[in-house]
């Protein structure tokens, strides 16, 4: 049965490889991408989402001669599966109108899905790594289609770095335990295991764009195809955190680290890194003018919170982290898709060149607005509950450095949220000739917005979904009903918020209804008495260098970033390589001398 899903996905990817028409390919891959969803729904009966069951088995051993791959679905994998595979059909729906021609997006996307499915089902390290590399390879090919030098180089080099780090970690673990099965691996607090855990977490952190290893993200996110980037930021970045969760809690790496350093310093450093990447990512985000780069930095920031949760490690924190991961998967995909829809109509990426799109594309704007509420953790969507849990956890553990950084980072989120809203959607109406995005795009975006609303009102369902994963990992769960989460420090009642909001809306609504108003064109503006037409040739759109004042203050501190560090490293390597190439003088007599010298040296080394 599982083999069937794998083979179906692979077959679909091979079929779409030869379908030139994008629509057909989209339909095929949409159907194919529903298979994992069906599997997830089916497994849900065990893990907390009871809809229906057709009895899909939960584990399989696939033995391809000489090497056995063990697959089995755990509660954790199921939760991440819910997070990731429910993203894909809407994205495919979006791509239906995004790609007229099949330029190779669909086959490799399906290949990617297969790889992700494999990673989630893997129950030994070989399988995990094999599918991890498949994921890296196929996503690299998708990046490669973006045709951007920096993106290609940075993505490939960082993927290889992460792969080799993970592989070394696996090898160390294997040399310690002599087994690759998760179930048989038993960690002990020795330096080999600890270094293995740290290496693997570093490797996974690359994929989830954690701060020192994030340098690839802005280039890749800003150049690849939108639907893929939506999945890259929404889905693939979570795979890194899946791996981290696996290392830290499922195979209890956190405990090992704690024993080894006999303090929580290691996990505290992880949390601190997460908080710092949330902070710096936010600062970089609202100074960015390229919409996709802005969203890339915002992804770095939002993903940082998850690392904070894992670093803190209490049940509250991990619940919050998983919740945040779920939210981020959805709202960030919507934002990237909305950016794609806007570009699909206007063909522009620079925020300072866009403007007034909302009047022509109201539904795209609505979707983007809701996901921005979720991004800024405003309690109109489920975005708030996650961050709230994280703050509660941080405060209750008395983390006096991390909590303010997290809070101020999320305040900074308002800044770039407004920059997106104003610069792209509001302000001067510059695009009179465009119309609303095609129906499939809008439908895809709204499908992705749905969960944000549902889990606003019933965060309890989310906590139920992650319950068994947390219990299996030996982490307690947060006490909650369907709509009240209560921690040691306070409780958060979503119904109170929603109902209170409805009640509080009454006066505003009365004012709005009772006093009639007349709609006028935005051109009828206060421009110190000047009519708009006089300014017709000047931009009335104040989106250029939007945050200049604060940029002037902050830039001196932010200029020496990680990216510049990597560039410096790259240039240094270049210099080294030039010196090394001096060895090859091109003169055969030199080479002959090399041979003689070599002979003498090894002779001497061997004999004496």
């Amino acid at each position, binding site marked *: 049965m599982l083999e069937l899903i794998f083979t179906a996905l692979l077959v679909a990817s091979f079929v779409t490889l030869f379908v030139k028409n994008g629509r057909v390919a989209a339909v095929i891959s949409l159907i194919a991408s529903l298979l994992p969803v069906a599997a997830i729904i089916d497994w849900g009966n065990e893990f907390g989402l009871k809809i229906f069951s057709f009895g899909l088995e939960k584990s399989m051993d696939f033995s391809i001669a000489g090497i056995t791959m063990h697959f089995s679905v755990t509660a954790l994998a199921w939760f991440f599966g819910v997070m990731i595979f429910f993203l894909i059909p809407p994205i495919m729906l979006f791509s239906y109108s995004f790609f007229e021609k099949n330029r190779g997006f669909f086959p490799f996307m399906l290949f990617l899905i297969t790889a992700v499915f494999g990673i989630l089902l893997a129950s030994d390290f070989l399988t995990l790594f094999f599918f991890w590399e498949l994921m890296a390879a196929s996503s690299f090919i998708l990046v490669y289609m973006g045709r951007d030098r920096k993106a290609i180089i940075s993505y490939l080099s960082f993927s290889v770095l992460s792969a080799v780090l993970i592989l070394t970690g696996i090898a160390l673990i294997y040399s310690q335990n002599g087994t690759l099965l998760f179930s048989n691996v038993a960690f002990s607090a020795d330096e080999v295991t600890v270094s293995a855990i740290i290496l693997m977490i570093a490797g996974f952190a690359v994929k989830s764009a954690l701060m020192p290893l994030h340098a690839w993200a802005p280039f890749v996110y800003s150049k690849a195809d939108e639907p893929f980037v939506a999945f890259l930021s929404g889905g693939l970045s979570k795979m890194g955190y899946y791996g981290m969760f696996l290392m830290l809690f499922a195979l209890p790496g956190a405990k090992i680290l704690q024993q080894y350093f006999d303090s929580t310093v290691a996990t505290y450093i992880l949390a601190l890194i997460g908080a710092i990447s949330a902070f710096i990512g936010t600062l970089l985000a609202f100074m960015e003018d390229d919409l996709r780069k802005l969203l890339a930095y915002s992804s770095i920031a939002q993903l940082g919170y998850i690392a904070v949760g894992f670093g803190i490690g209490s049940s509250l924190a991990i619940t919050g982290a998983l919740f945040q991961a779920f939210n981020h998967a959805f709202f960030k995909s919507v934002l990237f898709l909305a950016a794609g829809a806007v570009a699909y109509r206007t063909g522009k990426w620079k925020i300072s060149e866009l403007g007034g799109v909302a009047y022509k594309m109201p539904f795209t704007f609505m979707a983007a607005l809701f996901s921005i509420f979720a991004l800024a953790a*405003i309690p109109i969507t489920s975005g708030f509950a996650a961050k709230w849990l994280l703050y509660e956890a941080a405060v209750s553990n008395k983390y006096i450095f991390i909590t303010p950084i997290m809070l101020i980072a999320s305040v900074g989120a308002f800044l770039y949220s407004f920059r997106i809203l104003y610069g792209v959607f509001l302000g001067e109406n510059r695009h009179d000739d465009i119309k609303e995005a095609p129906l499939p795009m809008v439908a895809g975006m709204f499908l992705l917005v749905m969960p944000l609303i549902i889990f606003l009102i019933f965060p309890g369902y989310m906590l139920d979904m992650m319950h068994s994963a947390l219990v299996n990992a030996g982490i307690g769960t947060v006490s909650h009903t369907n709509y009240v989460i209560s921690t040691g420090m306070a409780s958060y009642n979503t119904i109170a918020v929603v109902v209170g909001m409805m009640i509080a809306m009454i006066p505003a609504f009365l004012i*709005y209804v009772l006093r009639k108003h007349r709609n006028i064109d935005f051109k009828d503006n206060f421009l110190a008495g000047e009519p708009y037409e006089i300014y017709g040739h000047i931009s009335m759109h*104040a989106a250029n260098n939007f945050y200049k004042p604060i940029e002037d203050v902050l830039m001196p501190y932010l200029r020496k970033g990680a990216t510049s560090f990597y560039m410096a490293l790259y240039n240094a390597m270049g210099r080294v390589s030039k010196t090394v190439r001096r060895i090859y003088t091109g003169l055969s007599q030199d080479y002959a001398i090399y041979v003689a010298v070599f002979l003498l040296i090894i002779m001497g080394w061997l004999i004496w």
Partner: protein
Amino acid sequence: MVDFLIKIAVIALYTTIAMLVGILFMGIGRKIVARVHNRVGPPVYQGFIDIAKLLTKKTNISHGWIYDLALLFSLTGIILTILFLPIGGVKLLGTEGDAFLVLYLLAIPALGFALGAGASGNPNAAIGVMRALVMMLSYELPFVITMIALMIYYDTSSIAQIVELQRARWAIMIPPFMLAAAVADMALQGMLMEAPFDIPTAPHEIASGPMAEFGGKHLGSLMLYKAGTIVAYTTLFVDLFLGGGVVMHDGSILSYIVNFAVWFLLILLIFTLSLLINASFPRFRIEQAFKFYWKYEALLAFISLIWVYLMVIS
């Protein structure tokens, strides 16, 4: 059922009173500033008159549905915030949420306001919103640090709880929180957009910034929102540092009245303080304000936080 209805009635009553108090404070504020300027100033009920005039304007113009969101969001958000703040010891919905929730609820009206300003398509409005948001980023840092200090000290994040725990001794009596309160008061100055931090709505530079295009009912609702913010922020401060103005703890009717009166006096005190600063200071440029908050204020706040931390762990 009955007590549920009573609770609803109490909530509605308190919220209405809070909004009225806010509108009254606008008049009082103008009066105070006028007295500082050695003027007579408007009558204290001027706020009511202004809002009445704006709401009864004959023509109201709108720039489209996103522009109307400003009206809806701002008023809704501020009332919702007041619902979650204990007023005079009466925790309306205070037990259903906590300080973080209040912080983020306060962002709803701000964002709605910003949406409307952006939708008005006036460049001045955009610049004003930019300044307001940067100001927000600036003052939030010291303010959240002081708030975290309180949470760590009282080991709860619920404002109602914090108010309860200050029965014996108001937070401001405790040495580190004197420092924290001073910091938070300067943050309050920024929250209320009073000088020296009133650059976001500087009338003569950017034509009163975000509300440059607002008039009629929209401006009226924004003035209601302003009134609400005055009450909300001052109440937040009073709840956090001055025990919510609770002096009598027996559940008698008298205690409610007294507590309410004390609460009123305290927020009036805080508001007057900020107005006096407002009336006697020039304006910071936006980056100066940012530096002020992130260098000195944040440093002081952090000192108090560490102080509290040491007190707690020892």
